[in-house]
């Protein structure tokens, strides 16, 4: 497992509990809001689908921004946002080994079975 987005210093407020105090004293202008991945359900009955990412200070702002950035034309009825640092992903360099177990099991597909043409409704 590899972290999808390696850099998670985006919203580096200092360690957990320091919170706002840290910000006002640090005085750095180099503080990016954290990065969020946005998932949108385009209509009832469909899955949420990844549509892109954006920066926001917190989850609520991420949802509001996602509405403005990704649903200006009624593209969605539900929005998920996940801070990018929490996304874990498989490593493309290991793809071969990772998916290898499925490669030699053609019998998992219906087309593997050679049956007479007269056989219907199956």
């Amino acid at each position: 497992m590899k972290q999808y987005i390696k850099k998670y210093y985006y919203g580096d407020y200092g360690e957990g509990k320091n919170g706002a105090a840290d910000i006002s004293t640090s005085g750095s202008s180099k503080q990016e809001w954290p990065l969020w991945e946005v998932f949108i359900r385009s209509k009832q009955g469909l899955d949420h689908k990844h549509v892109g990412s954006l920066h926001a200070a917190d989850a609520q702002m991420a949802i509001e921004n996602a509405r403005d950035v990704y649903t200006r034309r009624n593209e969605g009825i539900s929005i998920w946002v996940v801070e990018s640092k929490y996304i874990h992903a498989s490593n493309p360099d290991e793809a071969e080994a990772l998916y290898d177990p499925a490669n030699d099991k053609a019998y998992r597909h219906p087309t593997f079975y050679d049956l007479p043409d007269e056989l219907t409704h199956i």
Partner: protein
Amino acid sequence: MEKNLEVLFQEKIDKEIRIEPKDWMPEKYRQTLIRQISQHAHSEIVGMLPEGNWITRAPNLRRKAILLAKVQDEAGHGLYLYSAAETLGISRDEMYEQLHSGKAKYSSIFNYPTLSWADMGAIGWLVDGAAIMNQVPLCRTSYGPYARAMVRVCKEESFHQRQGFEILLTLSRGNEAQRRMAQDAINRWWWPSIMMFGPKDDESPNTIQSMKWKIKRFTNDELRQKFVDICAEQIKILNLTIPDPDLKWNEERGHYDFGAINWDEFWQVIAGNGPCNKQRLDARKKAWEEGKWVRDAASAYAAKRAVRKEVKVA
């Protein structure tokens, strides 16, 4: 080993397999994409400024609502593109810094002033038209996040061009002063729009490698010709003229011939000496600096709420 990876990479490209953020890629590919995508993003963001000038001056509520929606789309396009560039390992703030310091370029077209309402029409028809011509092939560009961003952009861009043409059409059917205004806007925007396709192929050193990597699918000159051919027909509906005495149908080539482009002007504008370069950059920097307290306040508020939540949980 490095060589091997590069061969494999090119094979993937040749087989039309998209490259995704975590895949191995040559450093030069990454750099080229960062440059191109961030320039593209900057262009969308700076591109809001010439039109922003006319939001409060739109002739009626319908036009105003449309222009607002268009400018908002451009902000959105900038954001799609910035996040696509970020997947290549550059941060948003770095990109802003490059724009504000003048290190990064954006489309030269946005350094021209918008002098009349008809400019909103000419920008929509010509500038957005040229942008679409460039952007449609980018929907199939080899880098996945860029291609996906471009699909969204292209979907939204079509209304931009249509509303522009509609503005010009309305003016062209108006009184003499309105017709003159429309013609004047076309006269001023035509050549800069033609230049938007970039330097001629033999002077565009990046094109060959970009074509090989399928970042670009057509050369600057191919796209420019296509654009000229289309506009030369569309202008007839407006009953106005394109300001090029050499514009003529060439039966043999099956294309319109057109006059020489003033490349000196193009390079001057790129180098920062266009009519509005300074104004545009100043506006961006001002927005960034004056927005700082908002960014800081939002961060502080988020941090405070996070602490409160933690306390509650504990």
